[in-house]
Structures are given as C-alpha cells and as structure tokens.
C-alpha cells in the first residue's frame, strides 16, 4: 500500500477521502443488506429444494418463513428454558459450619503404638 497523493493540498485530499470513504462504507453495508434481504432467503430456498425428501414436491416448499414466530417469542422461550435449567440445582444456603466429628478409635491411627514402638 503506497500512499497515492493526488493533490498536494491535504484539505482537498481530505474531502476526497470523506466522500469516497462514506460512499464505500454505505456501499459495503448496502451490499450486506441486500444480500441478507434477498440473497439469503433464495439461498435457503434452494437449499430446501435440494435437500427435500423424495415424496415432497418443489411447489410444496414455501420460501416464506413462519411470520408468527417472532424473535420475541424465541427470546421468551429461551429465557424460560434458561431459568428452568438454573433451578435444576437447588440453591445451597452457602453457610459452612464445621461440626466436631466423633472420632472413631482405630489402632491404625493410634499414636500410642508409634510412641511405644521402640520398647517392643
């Protein structure tokens, strides 16, 4: 990338960059818009046609997506699932208490054996 200075005056160059830059940004995002508005549904439709079952006819396949099922409904369902899964694990009270455990005597842990071992 070498700088291409068309004019020596930076302000003129600035205006050129301003206009071309804005145009390119708009063009880029318009291109994306157009693709996702029209290109994507067509792609998905073609995909549906290609992967259709043998018994299905092409005309049965509708390019329209279900209009009633909105993002809000999807969000509500996912929140509900999330909350439900959260409740799977009951909440601990988060209070730790240390209780004296009753120690069982065992000769394996007894000090008395090691203390008197030398005398044996």
């Amino acid at each position, binding site marked *: 990338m070498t*700088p291409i200075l068309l004019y020596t005056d930076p302000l003129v160059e600035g205006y050129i960059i301003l206009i071309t830059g804005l145009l390119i940004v708009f063009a*880029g*995002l318009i291109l994306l818009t157009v693709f996702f508005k029209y290109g994507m549904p067509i792609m998905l439709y073609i995909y549906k046609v290609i992967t259709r079952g043998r018994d299905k006819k092409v005309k049965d396949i509708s390019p329209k997506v279900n209009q009633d099922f909105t993002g809000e409904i999807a969000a509500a369902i996912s929140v509900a699932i999330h909350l439900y899964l959260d409740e799977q694990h009951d909440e601990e009270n988060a209070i730790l208490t240390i209780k004296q455990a009753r120690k069982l005597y065992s000769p394996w842990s007894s000090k008395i054996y090691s203390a008197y071992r030398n005398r044996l």
Partner: protein
Amino acid sequence: MTKQKTMKKVILIFGILSLLIFIKPLLGFSSNATNTTVSTSVSQTESIVEKTFVDEALDGIGEFYHFTGFANAQSGHIIMILIGIIFIYLGIKFDYEPLLLIPIGAGVMLGNIPFVAGYQTGIYEEGSVLNYLYFGVVKGIYPPLIFLGIGAMTDFSSLIANPKLMLLGAAAQIGVFATFLGALYLGFNLPEAGAIGIIGGADGPTAIFLSSKLANGINVLADGTTVKNLIGPIAIAAYSYMALVPVIQPPIMKLLTSKKERLIRMKPPRAVSQKEKMIFPIVALLLTTFISPSALPLLGMLFFGNLLKESGRTERLAETARTKLIDIVTIILGVTVGASTQADVFITKDSMMIFGLGALSFVIATAGGLLFAKFMNLFLKGDDKINPLIGAAGVSAVPDSARVVHAEGIKADPHNYLLMHAMAPNVAGVIGSAIAAGIILSFLG
C-alpha cells in the same frame, strides 16, 4: 496449651534479641563500644569510622531520595494521576464501562509514577516490562484479539432479521469522516487526522488499531516529517467517550427526535434460524473484506469469532474467546494504554485538541444515526417504521449505546423495549467503523 504459649514467648524474645544484635552495627554502635578496656587510639579510629558510616548512610538516603517519586514529581504527573483516579472513580461509582475504565485508570497511575529515566522503568523505555506489553498496542496485535472475543459474544440475529438497520451503522460513520476533516482543519497532517477521525467510530480496538498504523511516531511522510505518536491520546479519548456514552447521547437524542417519534413501536424481529446465523459470518466476512481488505485483521477476527459461536461445534473455542482470551487482552490493553499517557508525552496541545475533536465526533456520529433513521422513516410505512432513537446506537460502543437507546425508549414509553432492535445498528456500527478504518488505512497507510 500453656507449654506452647511459653515456647512462643521464648522464640519471640530470642528473635527480638537476635534482631537487635544484627541491627546494632546499623545503628552505629560498634560491637566493642561498651568495652572500657580498649586503648584511646583505637577508640579514636572507631569514632572516625562511626562518623563516616553515618554520613555515608545519610548520603545513601539522599541518593535514594533522588530516585523516589517525591523528588521527580512534576505537576503533569500529579494531574495525570488525578485523572487516573477519576477514571477509577467513574468506573466504580457510576458503572461506566468499569471493565475498561478501571484498568485504564490504574494504567494512567502506573504510567505517571515519576521515575529517573534510563533504568528501563517507563513504558517508552526500550526493554522495560511495560514496553514489552505495549508492543501489542504499537503493532496492533491486541485489537484483533479483542474483536475475536466480541465476535464470539455478539448475536447478529437482530441484524439478520432486519437487514435494513445495517444502514444506520453506516450513517453513524459520518462522525468518523467529519472528525477527520475537522482534524485536517486544525492542522494535523493526513495520517494523524485519519487516526483521530476514527474516534468517531466509537470503537476502542479499531481506534487503537488505526492509530498504531497511522499515527505511531514511526511512519515518515512524503515531505520527510515523522508523524506524531498519538496512540495514547486517541485511545484514551475513544475509551473515555465510549464510557461517557450514557452522558453524551441522551441530550442529542432528545434534541433531534420528537416525543411522537420516540413512541414509535417497532414490530418484533422475526426468529432467525441457526442456518442463517451460520451463513452470516461467512458471507459478511467475504463481502466486507473484499470491499475493504485493509480491515482484514479486525473484520476477519470478528466474523471468525462469530463463526466459532454459531457453528455449534466449537463451543469450547468460542467460550475461551469470549471469556478468558478477551479478558486477558482487555487487562493488558487497558493497563498499557493507560500507562502510555506518561505526562511528558501526553499533556500537549495536540492531546487537548484530540479530546475536543473526540467529543465532537461522538456528537456528529449520534446525530448522523438519528437523522438517517428519520430519513429512512420517510420511505417506510405502517409498522415497518423504525424508532429513530435506535439510529443513535449506530455509533458502535457495544453494547452501551444500545442500552442507552433502550433506557431513553423506556423513558418515553415504559413498555417499549428497544434493546433488541438497537442491537442491530449497534453491531452494524462495529462492522461499519471497521470498514471505515480499512478505507482510511488504504488511503493513508
């Protein structure tokens, strides 16, 4: 138990005694000072040694003092440390992007501790630890990693459901180009102005990326002058205005929209299938980088991160990218960008102008988004109409500006939830500002 206590006491007394014995020479008592049988000549030499020893110790302390911050502090350091504390305060008290402001605030303090130059301490001294960490900023390594994380945490579905909102993200980029022009008028040269302009993109990583390429203090212009190093001021301006979005945007929103427009309810976005979500990053990656290849590191990583999230097979990678990785990079980036504001480099007229231009660019970008949304409404009918408030989310600042839009919408109508709609221009703004950065880079890089 009592045995243990007495043992402890004995050890404590013994410890104190031994400490006293070790300290004694330091306090100036020679070991035989109490010895009365020593001849006078010996005691004389002893006293001479004593004196010089104390003097040397004092000299040492004096020398040490010259190395301390107290001796080297200048008003600039104090001002910058105060600014750092204000950043931390804003982050904690008002919750303005604390994940950014607290590391940056801490970094500002770190970078402005006064020190004696030449001991590999400061961020601009070659070989210092901070300098090594700063390398990732100077070379533009951290911003793409941040973008990877952003991609892995962003849900583009509201944008896919309503692609026309993409245009709002483009409209807000007028802030970038207007600021660029403003910087030129204020006398900055072209690359510097380009880097300053991107503050209007309201995107910290993009701003750092572009300034590290254009205004890094290394590049040489055609006429032989070296560009200034403006990474610090630009990054600080971008991040602080991003954090101040909840302060800057609402007045402009109120000014440019009528009550009736703020009440517009948009129809809920349609549900987006997983297939569409998977196709989006691939197609968007190809389209945007073909248009603006210079933005490849940013857009490539952004959409790669999103693909990790949406592919459904790489949840582990996506999880790392959006949590651990982005956290690590944010910590290092925040601290080093903060530390790069070393007073002698930072407190200049240029920085003040950059801050002025930065504020202006946010205002222009917000206004651009709002006005374009109103313009779009001229062509839209019925429930297709968009609430112009969401235009303000076209400045990226993800997700803060979308939240601000939501809050303003709630103020007008407590049952109008705009957050989901506002996320669309918000993420489009990220794409738009990265494209804009790529364009500026290809013109001026």
